[in-house]
C-alpha cells in the first residue's frame, strides 16, 4: 500500500483476497504448522499453537513492524512480498519451510530454499497465488532463536538472524543452521556442511567460530542505512547471540 500511496506502483487492478475465508486457517498436521494466506501476523503472534509448535516463528513475529502493522499484515503475505530485510524470510529458510502455490493451472509446492529469487521477487509467476506456508514443527532437543539489529524497534532489520541448534543424546551438537536477512537481495542460509560444529560440545568458542564463518560466507550489501562492512560485523555479532540462545534452549528441550 505505501508503494501505491507514493505512486511508485501503478497496478491496473488489485485482487483483494481478504474475503476468501477458506484461506484463514492455522493448524498442525503431520509435524507441520500450516498457515493459510489470510492468517494475520498478530494472530499468529498471539496464537498458543504457534508458540508451542513453531517457536522460531513466534520469536520472530514481534520484530515485524508494530502491532498495528501486524494486525493487517499476513505471514504468507510477507513471504510473497519478499522484502530483503523481512524477518520471515530468514525463518522460512532456516526451518526449511514449504510454500504452497496455486493457480488455474493447479497447485505446486516450492521449498523455501528455491522460493526467494531476488529483491521483492519470488518463484511466483504473475498468475499464481501463495496460499499457504508450512513450517516444520519444533523437534525434540532443538532450540530456536531469532535476533535482529534495527535502528529503532520495529524498523526493517539492518541484519536479522534465525538460529536452530539441535543436540544429540550426549549433549553435543547434532546440527546447527543460521539464516540471515537484511544482508542481500534474498535471505541467506548457512548450514554446517563442513561438520565444524557437528559432534562437538556447544562451547562459546565453538559457537563464536561458527558464527564468524557464517558471517564471512557471503558478501553483504550496502544501502543508505548501513555499509557492507558494518552489516558483516552485525551479522557476526547477531549470529553468535542467536546461536547461543538457541543452544541454551536446546538444552532445556525447547
Amino acid at each position, binding site marked *: 500500500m505505501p508503494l501505491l500511496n507514493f505512486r511508485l506502483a501503478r497496478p491496473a487492478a488489485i485482487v483483494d483476497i481478504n474475503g476468501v475465508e477458506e484461506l484463514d486457517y492455522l493448524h498442525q498436521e503431520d509435524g507441520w504448522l500450516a498457515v493459510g494466506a489470510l492468517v494475520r501476523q498478530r494472530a499468529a503472534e498471539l496464537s498458543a499453537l504457534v508458540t508451542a509448535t513453531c517457536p522460531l516463528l513466534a520469536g520472530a513475529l514481534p520484530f515485524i513492524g508494530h502491532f498495528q502493522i501486524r494486525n493487517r499484515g499476513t505471514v504468507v503475505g510477507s513471504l510473497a512480498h519478499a522484502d530483503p530485510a523481512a524477518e520471515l524470510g530468514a525463518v522460512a529458510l532456516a526451518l526449511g519451510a514449504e510454500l504452497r502455490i496455486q493457480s488455474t493451472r493447479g497447485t505446486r509446492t516450492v521449498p523455501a530454499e528455491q522460493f526467494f529469487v531476488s529483491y521483492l521477487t519470488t518463484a511466483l509467476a504473475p498468475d499464481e497465488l501463495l496460499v499457504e506456508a508450512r513450517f516444520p514443527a519444533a523437534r525434540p532437543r532443538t532450540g530456536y532463536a531469532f535476533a535482529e539489529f534495527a*535502528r*529503532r524497534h520495529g524498523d526493517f532489520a539492518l541484519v536479522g538472524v534465525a538460529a536452530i541448534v539441535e543436540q544429540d543424546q550426549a549433549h553435543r551438537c547434532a546440527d546447527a543452521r543460521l539464516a540471515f536477512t537484511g544482508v542481500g537481495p534474498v535471505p541467506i542460509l548457512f548450514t554446517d556442511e563442513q561438520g565444524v560444529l557437528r559432534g562437538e560440545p556447544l562451547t562459546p568458542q565453538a559457537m563464536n567460530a561458527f558464527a564468524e564463518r557464517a558471517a564471512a560466507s557471503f558478501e553483504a550489501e550496502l544501502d*543508505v542505512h*548501513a555499509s557492507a562492512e*558494518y552489516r558483516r560485523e552485525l551479522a557476526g*555479532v547477531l549470529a553468535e547471540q542467536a546461536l547461543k540462545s538457541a543452544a541454551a534452549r536446546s538444552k532445556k528441550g525447547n
Partner: protein
Amino acid sequence: MSRALFGVRVERREDLPLLTGQGSYTDDLKRPGMLHAAVLRSPHAHAKIRSIDVSAARALAGVAAVFTHADLGAAGKEIPLLQPNPLLVARTQLLLAHDIVRYVGEPVAFVVGDDRYVTEDALELIEVAYEPLAVAADAEGALEDGAPLVYPEIANNLASRFTLGFGDATEVFGRADLVLRQRFKTHRGAGQAMECRVVLAEYDRRANRITMWSATQAPHLIGRLASQMLGMEEWQVRVIAPHDVGGGFGPKAIFYPEEGLVPFAARALGRPVKWTEDRHEHFLSTNQERDQYHDAEMALTREGKVLGFRDTVVFDTGAYVPWGIVEPWITATTIPGPYKLSAFQVDMQVVYTHKVPVTPVRGAGRPQAVFVMERMMDLAARELQLDPAEIRQRNFIQPEEMPYPMGLVYRDGAQVTYDSGDYPACLRKAQDLIGYDQFRREQSRARFEGRYIGVGIGAYVEGTGLGPYEGAIVQIESSGKVLVTTGATPQGQGHVTTMAQIAAHELGIDVDDITVITGDTGAIPFGIGTFASRIAVNAGNSIALAAREVREKALAIAANLLEANKDDLELAQGSVFVRGAPARSISLGALALTAAGARPGYTLPPGVQPGLQATHYFSPSQAAYASGAHVITVEVDVRTGDVKILDYAVAHDCGRMINPMIVEGQVQGGVAHGIGNSFYEELIYDNNGQLLTASFMDYLLPTAKEVPTAKIAHMEVVCPLNPLGVKGVGEGGTIPSAAAFAGAVEDALAPFNVTVKEVPLSPEKVRKLLREAGR
C-alpha cells in the same frame, strides 16, 4: 479572593476537542465549492526548464486549472526578502520556477481540481523538458573555485561572509599554554511536525478580499507577503492560523510559494482552493536546517581557563535565503555560551547549494554552536585531565556578574548582555539529578566488567523573547467575560491556557471566563508570530500589561459610578467593590456596558476612552537569556555501536514559569527532538542533490522506545527585563542535547580515546570510531 494563577499547573483548556476528534486543523476545513491543489515539483537539483506542456493536464476531466510561471502575471516576481542585510547577496524564490530550478522539490506548476486524487493524476500528465546542469550539493565543495554555481553572478556560491568577535584573538592565542584544534560537522535535519503544511484560500469577489487559513506560525507575515504578491492591500488579505495547528518547530514560520499560489488560484478561479502537503513533499520542499562545518580552535591556560576561541564556519543555506542571514548570525553569537572569554572570533561563510532552503528549526543554529563549544570543552578537559564538569565550572560567568556584557556588540553599538542566570548552579543541579559522583564510581566498576558507560554534559545560553514585539487586546465583554486577542498563534504550546492564566491572574477572574483568540490578522492588526521561544516574553507581557490597563480603567469608571476614591476600590471575582463595604459594587460586565456607551446620559471620566479594552504591544529591549545544562548517561555496545540512554537530567532557567506543566512538556518535547538530532535524524543528499532519505522509513524520528522521561529541575532566575520576569523555553530542551550525547559516548569509550566530531551518531559511526581506534 481569586486564586493566584501565575505559576500554577492549570490543566489545558485545549484538550477536550483534541481528545474527541473535534479539532479544527487546516485540512479539516471545508469551504463551499472548494477545489484541491497539487504542486508539480522539480526532480532535478539544478536544471534549465526548456519547455512546459500542460495541455494534457488541463484537458483531464476534474481539473479546473493548471498554472505555470507564465500564468502568474504580476505575481511572477520574487518573494520579498525578510531581514535584508547589506552583508547578504540575497536571492529569494518565485512562486513557480521560471526558466531554472535550483533544488529537488522546487515548485514548477500548480494544478487545481476536484480532489487530491485527480490533481495528482494531472501532475503526471504535465511534460517538462529539463536540461540538467551540474550540481553543488555540498557547502564546502560549493565554495571551491570551479564548483557549479547556484547563481552564475555569485562567485563561489558565497551568499555572505562576515566576522564577529571581540578582544585580540592573535595575542591571546599567542600566549596560551594550550591550543586545541578540531573540525566538526553537524548534519541536515528537519522539523517534521506531524501535520504537514496546508493552505486554504477563499476570494470574495464582491468585497475584493481574500481570507486564508494556513497552518502557519506567522499569520501576519503570510498576510503581508501574500498581499504584496497579489498586488493587494494588507487589509484585503486576512490570514487565520486555525485553532489547531499540528506542530510548527520553525519551518511553518515561512512564506512559501504555496502561500502565494493558493490565494492566487482562488482569486483567479473565483472558488476556494486548498493545498494539502503530503509527507513526501514535506521532505522535498519544507525548509530544513543544521548543516554546518566548523573549524574550531580554543586557547587555554594549563589550569583549564579558556582564554580565547576562534571558529571558521561554513553554513549551508540551500538554494534561497528567505530569512536572510539571521540563522548564521544566531550560530555565531551563541558560540561563546556561558563562558568568560578574553577573545573571540568567528568567521562565517554562508553558502548557496542546490538543496532545500535553510531556515530555523527548533534551536535555530544554537545546537550547532553549543555542540562546537561543548565538544571543545570536553577535549580540553581530556587533554588537561580535568573532569568535564570541573573545567566548565572554572570558566562559567558567575551569577554575581550579571548582567554580563559578553563581549559582542550589535551593529548599533549596543552591548550584547546576558541579563540573568546562574550557570554554575544549573550544572550542579543537573549533576545532582543524575547522581554524577556516584556514576563515576559505577563507571570504574563497569569498565572492569567490560561494560562501557559514560556521562556527558551540555551547557547552553539561549537568547529568547526575540522582538520586535507581540501584541494583545484585552477586552471585557458586557457579560463580564474576557476576550484576549493576540497575534501569537499556537502549535501545541498551550497558549490558550497560559495566556488565559495571565489575564485571569491580573483581573482576578476565573480562567474559564476567558476566551483567547490567536493568530487572526483580522482580529489584531499587528503581529510577528510564534517561533524563537518568544511568546511568553512578548505576548505574555502584552497580555499582562493590557490587562493591567483594563483593570485601571475599570477602577476609574467604577470610582466615578460608585462615587468612591479609586484607591479604596478592589477588583475581585468579576466585580469592583469598595473595600470594607462589599455591597457597594459593580460588575465588570456593567462597567463594560458603561464604557461602551450603553448607559444613557453617562459621560466617561476625563481621559478615559470608550470601551473596557486595552491594547498593548510589548517590545523587549533585548533578548532574555535563558540557560541550562543537560547531563546524560549512556551505555555503548562496542560490538554493534548501539548507544542506550541510561538517564537524562535537565536543569534549566526560563525565568518565572507561567505553567510548570506546560514548561515540562516543552522541555521533554525538546529533549526528544534533541535525541533525534543526536542519533537518528539525518537528511542524506547524494552528489546530485537528490534526497535519499525522503520518507519516515529512512528519516528516523525517535519513538517512545528511544526517548526516556527526563528528570527536570527548574531554576527560576527572574528575568529583570520584562514585567512578568519570564524567559522563553520552547527550544532549550533541544539545544545542548547533541553536545551532551557526544560527550557521553566519548566518555564511555574513553579507553579507546575516540573523538566524536559529528552528529548524528549512528551505531555504524560509533563502530567506525572504534575500528579506527583498533577495536
